[in-house]
Each structure stands twice: as C-alpha cells, then as structure tokens.
C-alpha cells in the first residue's frame, strides 16, 4: 500500500506537481534585479507625470474616488431557461434602483442573456479603449473548475455577472456611459445593438492599427513600459495563485473523502468492545464533526477566494489588451507623423490629422494613467478582503476542531470509577504513552 503520484494538471494548463517536484517553479522567472521595493512604482510615476491642467476625466476620477455614496444599485438574479426554436439559453433578471437624474425612473427590471453582457462590454471598450473594463466570466469553463455543469456553473456565472455590473457602476466614467444606461433600462436591447455605423469602420481601423503596431512603435514612454512589465509579472503571479488555490481545494476534497472512512471504522470497532466502546464512539463522533467543519472550509474557499482570484486572472487579459490598444493609438500617430514629414502635398490637412492623433494619444495616456491607479487600489482591496476572509474562516475551522476534541477529552477525564486498585504491580513504563 504505497505511494501515489499526484495527478497531473487538470485543466490543460501548466501546473503539474509531482511528489518529487513539489518545489517545481511553475511560474516564469520574472525576478527583478533587486527584490527591494522599487523607488518608482507606476502609481508614484503617475504622480510625477500628471499634467498641470486637469482633464475632464481626471476631475471625475478624483471626485469619484472620494465619494463613497452609491446612487445606483444593481442586482443580477433569477436565472431562467428560455427555449426558442433555434436554441436554449439562460436569461438573467437585471434589477436597477437609482436616484440618478439621467434615469427617467428610479427602478428598472430587464431580462438579459450572456450575449447581451458581451455586447455591453465590447461597446464600453470601444468607446473607452484605454480604460480598464472589468472582465466578464468566461464563455466556456475549463474542465475541473465546476463539477456539475448546470447548477453550479449557472450560479457562478450569475455571481460574476452581478459583480461585473456593479464594478461598471462603481467606475467614475464607465458608469455614465450611454450604453450602460441602455443595457440597464431598455426592454428590447436588440434594436440598440444594431445601431452605431461607426462600429464596423472602427473595427477596420483597429485591425490596421494592430498591423501598424507590430512594426511601428518607436518609443513607449517609460511609465507604460514599466506598466507593461508589471502586467506581465502580475499576470504570472495571479495565474499561479489561482492554480495553487484550485489545487488546494482539490487536495482537501480528496483528504476529506479519506477522512470520512475513519468514523464508521471506529464505530464498527466500538460494537465489539465493552469498556472501550464509549471512547471509541467518542472519537468516531469527533472525526465526523471535524469532517463537517472541513467541508465548510472548503466550501467557503470555493465561494469566496476562487471567484476573486479568477476574476483577476481574467483582468490580466483586459490589462494586456488595454496596453495594446494604447500602443496602437500611439503607433497610428507616429505613422501619420512620419508620413507628414515625407509628403509635400496636403501638408495642412495632414497636419490637422496628426494633431488630432496627437491629442488622441494624450487622452488615451491620461485615461489609462488614472484608471491604472484606480484599478490597482481595487485589486489590492478585493484580494485583501478575499484572503482575509479565507484566513478568518481557517482560524474558525481550527477553533471548531479544537473545541470538538477538547470536549472529548473532558468526557474521558471526568469519567468516574476508573479501576486502578486491583493491581499489584505498577504499569510498565510504556514508552509510547509517556
């Protein structure tokens, strides 16, 4: 009855902890030259680079960061299956309560499906290419994350969609987006989805810009290079933490399955004993209660820590996309600038174009800069609260188990009538009991 190797990765990604390789480095080596805190963090650099005159966006950002009073409350609930001729899908109820002036009413209730959320998000990204828009839950689920596809999956998704809308509503700029309002209020979303002639042409532009950026970017300002580096590093770390967490849950579940074998065995033993029956049953019940506590601990981790980590894993894709878009905007400007230098004709109109693009770069950079520090704060706060909650639950778990075993001890010590007087000889010095 000997060793089992740990099962290999369960979701198609890299984490593979063999028994001998449990010290395996599973993240890319992203060590910085020195591990001491950097003198110039992105946020401190933001402070250095902030221009004198404050843009409209920045003003709003500062206002919103101070203000904690919410004037809009959104819930996503009541997932229901809808069946049509072509497909079956889930509809979620989105309920909004608000005191904002822009809204005609103070309460709204609409039905939305996942596709609608996707539409909203893409519109927000389109309109604000260098703002960090919170990610949506994935369309498909990697195997192993949720056991029963239907109920747990839908519930997990519902919670994530709820969080998504709330994150948008907390964003100083995005929450005032017209698309957002439409999403929350329009009974019929389809007509709105088809609007916007700029949609396709914007897509075309982006494609060209991507092509440009592959060759074009002259010099990225250092603050954004640092940001890029951080995003790379953070993305590795958060990905790893997410994986480790899921692995822990898996291992704990397997541990719990084995632990549950104890209780019936002790109980069975108790049946063939007389004096020993009582302590044996005591131990059986203790193990059972500890198992229940462990169950709850695992459940809590799955409900609190896993979604929080997973969200930030998805965030890293968003961050990378935002950085790419910023680069593209800069590349486009630089390309046109080069064209301006070489061409003789159309100097004036080209100059206008170049100026426009230059402004665009400025705006994009400022937007990102501001949103970056906002995002970092949010990330720290979210993850901190998730970790704290997990840690507290862990402490709780150990306290419960402690109490369980202590009560067993009490039951044994207090037991009267221990027959020690019938013996002539002292107990052998049992080396193990000592």
């Amino acid at each position, binding site marked *: 009855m000997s060793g089992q190797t740990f099962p290999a990765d369960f979701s198609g990604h890299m984490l593979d902890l063999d028994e001998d390789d449990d010290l395996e480095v599973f993240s890319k080596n992203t060590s910085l030259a020195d591990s001491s805190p950097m003198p110039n963090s992105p946020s401190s650099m933001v402070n250095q680079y902030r221009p004198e005159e404050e843009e409209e966006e920045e003003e709003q950002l500062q206002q919103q960061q101070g203000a904690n009073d919410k004037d809009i409350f959104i819930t996503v609930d009541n997932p229901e299956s809808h069946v049509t001729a072509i497909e079956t899908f889930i509809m979620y109820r989105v309920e909004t309560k608000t005191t904002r002036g822009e809204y005609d009413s103070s309460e709204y209730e609409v039905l939305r499906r996942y596709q609608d959320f996707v539409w909203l998000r893409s519109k927000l990204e389109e309109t604000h290419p260098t703002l960090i828009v919170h990610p949506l839950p994935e369309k498909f689920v990697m195997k192993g994350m949720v056991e029963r596809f239907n109920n747990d999956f839908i519930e997990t998704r519902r919670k994530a969609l709820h969080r998504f809308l709330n994150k948008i509503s907390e964003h100083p700029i995005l929450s005032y987006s017209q698309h957002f309002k439409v999403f929350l209020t329009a009974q019929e979303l389809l007509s709105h989805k088809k609007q916007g002639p700029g949609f396709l042409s914007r897509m075309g532009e982006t494609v060209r810009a991507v092509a440009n950026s592959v060759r074009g970017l002259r010099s990225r300002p250092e603050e954004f290079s640092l940001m890029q580096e951080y995003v790379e590093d953070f993305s590795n770390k958060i990905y790893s*933490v997410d994986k480790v967490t899921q692995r822990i849950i898996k291992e704990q579940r397997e541990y719990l399955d084995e*632990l549950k074998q104890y209780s019936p065995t002790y109980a069975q033993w108790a049946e063939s004993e007389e004096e020993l029956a009582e302590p044996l049953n005591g*131990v059986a019940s203790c193990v059972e209660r500890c198992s229940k506590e462990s169950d709850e601990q695992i459940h809590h981790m799955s409900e609190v820590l896993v979604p929080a980590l997973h969200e930030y894993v998805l965030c890293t894709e968003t961050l990378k996309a935002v950085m790419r878009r910023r680069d593209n905007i800069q590349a486009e400007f630089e390309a046109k600038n080069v064209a301006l230098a070489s061409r003789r004709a159309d100097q004036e109109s080209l100059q206008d174009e170049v100026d426009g693009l230059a402004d665009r770069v400025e705006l994009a950079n400022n937007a990102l800069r501001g949103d970056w520090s906002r995002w970092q704060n949010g990330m720290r706060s979210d993850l901190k609260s998730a970790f704290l909650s997990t840690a507290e639950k862990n402490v709780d778990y*150990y306290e419960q188990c402690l109490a369980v075993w202590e009560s067993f001890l009490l039951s044994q010590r207090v037991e009267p009538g221990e027959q020690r007087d019938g013996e002539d000889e002292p107990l052998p010095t049992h080396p193990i009991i000592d």
Partner: protein
Amino acid sequence: MADCGSNEEVAVIFNTDITSTESENNLINTMVEIGATLLRKMEINVTEAEKRTGKNTVNMQETYTVYLIETRSAETVPEGGTPTTPDTLWRRYSEFELLRTYLLVTYPYIIIPPLPEKRAEFVWHKMSADNLDPDFVERRRVGLENFLLRVASHPVLSNDKIFFLFLTEEKEWREVVLETGFQDKVDSRLKSLSAMFRVKNPDKRFTALKHYSDELNSVISQLLRVRAKVADRLYGVYKVHGNYGRVFSEWSAIEKEMGDGLQSAGHHMDTFAASIDDILEEEEHYADQLKEYLFYAEAVRSVCRKHELIQYELEMVAQDLVSKKQQKEELATGTVRVFSLKGMTSKLFGQESQEQRESRLAALEQSTREGEETLKERNTECQEFVRTAWEDIGRFKEQKDRDLREALISYAIMQISMCKKTKGEDDRSAEARTELSI
C-alpha cells in the same frame, strides 16, 4: 550480572549452576508467585541501534541491525550518588523472534506480547518501507523495548529464566535456548495449529474470544489502512500550501504597497507546509500503538487455537477409551458391535482358543486402564490450561482497555495541539494579511 541482593525470590533465578530439569521445576514453582515481576527489580532499556555486517548461515555477507539492551538494578540510588553503570549486550531482531517463539511454546496459555512488525506495513508514500531506513529502525527500537517491558511486567513470563538470560547473557544464550528442546514442540505444535480439525464440544467462551480476536484484527487493519491514505492526502494538502509560499514571495517582489503583507503571508505558508512532517511523525506513534494490539489479536487467537488443540486431543483420547471399552465388552460377551480385525479373522478362520481370548482381554484391560489414566491427565491438563488462560485473558482485557483508552486520549491531545499550532500560525497569517491595507 547485576546483583540485586539476597532477595529470596530472586535467588532462584540467579543460580546458574543448577541443571536444566531443576531449573524447569523452579520455573514451575516461581510461576505461582504472582506480582513479583522482574520489572520491580530491574530497569530495562533498548537504547541504541547499530548496523553490522557479517556472514550468515549460508556463508554470505549480510547487513543487519543490532540493538543495545541495557539493564540496571532498580535499587534507589543513594543521595548524591551516581546511578550504577548498566550492563549491556547487543541483540538482533532474529534473536528477539527466537525468544518469543520459545515463550509461545513454553507458555501456550499465555497471550505472549507481540514484537514490532518485521517489515513496514501500512506505509503512506513518504514513509520508507526499507528495513534499514533510520526512521524504521528507530521505531523498531522503541517497539523492542516495549516488548521487553511487557514481558518483564507479566506475572508469569517475567519469571522465566530464558528471558532473564536473554537480558544478561549475550553469547551463550542461543545454545541455552536450543537446549531446552522447545523446538521439537514447535514443530509438532505448528503442524497441529495449521491442521484442520473439528472439536465436538467447543468451549463457548473460547469461541467467542476467537471471534473477538478476528474482529479486532480486521477493524484495526482497516483503521491503519485508512490512516495511511489519510496521511498521504494530508501530506499533499500541506505541501501544496508550500507552493503558496513560493508564489506569495515572488509576488511580493513586484508589489509596493502589498509587498510586506504578501511576504509574511508567504513565510507563514512555508512554515505551515513544513509542519506536516512533525504532525505525521506524532501520528506514527498512535499507529504503532494500534499495531501492537493488531499483533496482540493474533496472539489471542493463537491461545484459542492451542486450546482447541488440547480440547481435540482430549476428545480423541476419550473416544479412544470408549472404543477400547466397547471392544472389551464385546470380547467378554461375545457380541460383535465394533469391527475389529481380530473379530473378522476369527469369524473367517474360526474361533480363537480360550487362552487367546483371555490374553486379549487382559491386554485390553491394561490398555483401558492406561487410557483412563491418560484421560484423567489430559482432563487435568485441559482444565489447568483453561484456568490459567482465562486468568491471563482477564489480565489482558484490562491491559488492553487501559492502553487503548490512553492511546485514544493522546490522539485527541495530539489533534488539539495540532489545531492550536496551526491556528496560531493562521492567526499571525491573518494579521499579516491585514498588513495588505495601506
């Protein structure tokens, strides 16, 4: 040899000049003295283990481990005095086995304490199954000491001279043991124990006890199997937490505000992950305690089997006597109820002469009388066996209940201390995480 004074009880054992038959008689005499166990007079420890190489019986090199047995007079040391230096000798596992086999044969009605396992069983993946592994050797050392203490505190076994010599006489002991001739008994007993035989009137108490020993064996085996699996899994859980430690440390390097909090969270994860080794080592003690009673269950079963054998032999003798009596009767009355070759041949070849009949009758008379004597002896033997066995079984039951209850209590204490330790870590970890706030 340690001198324990001129205590009357002990004088007998110390006298090595007596012949073997005399010593056997003395053994029978001293068995009556309940309560005068060796442990009162002698401190016994198995203190060390060492590797040796040597040639074995087939003249091949082998490596084996020897264990150092220290014995010391249990007299209280006068104030300010130094404790007496112990007498020591080295023994290897096979010698312990020889001792135990001797005891099994010599005291068939006693539940002989078991030795620690020969090979590591119920291992979980990190534990080595290698007999030369230092952890295994260490646990075996403890187990061997425990065995000696069990024997030395047994009211009957502790007075055995061979046992005493085992503790005191390194070189000659093997010869002395073999001279007792117990090996012959081993062969015949072993054959009987493995043979299938049916007892006509089984003793209900022994049947129940055998059933109990089977239950105990099965349930403790199951418990040990589960434990091995649980240990495996728990090890996995803790080790994966070690990965947290690694990631948090790396992550702390890229964060400014969160850096310190992540760093200390990482450290706590590492400490947590490392703590599993101690936890599982402590649990190993509990497993060893269970194992001892797993093997005790076998010893109990063996006593039951020996009783069955005696019972069976008794029944055979009784049956034999009945058949002889019937033959006698037939011969006297002339009726043939039982088949005998003589009867058959006399039918075929004619009646035998009066002389022949009378001589046969006389022979049967003699045989019957001898049979009756044998029956009486066997009966007494059986009753004596039953009496002494049940005495020891009663003693064993009390010991078992005591020991296992203590084991369960110390298991609970272990769980509590583990919770406290981990919770302590977790408390600090939670604090560290609050440092994540700016």
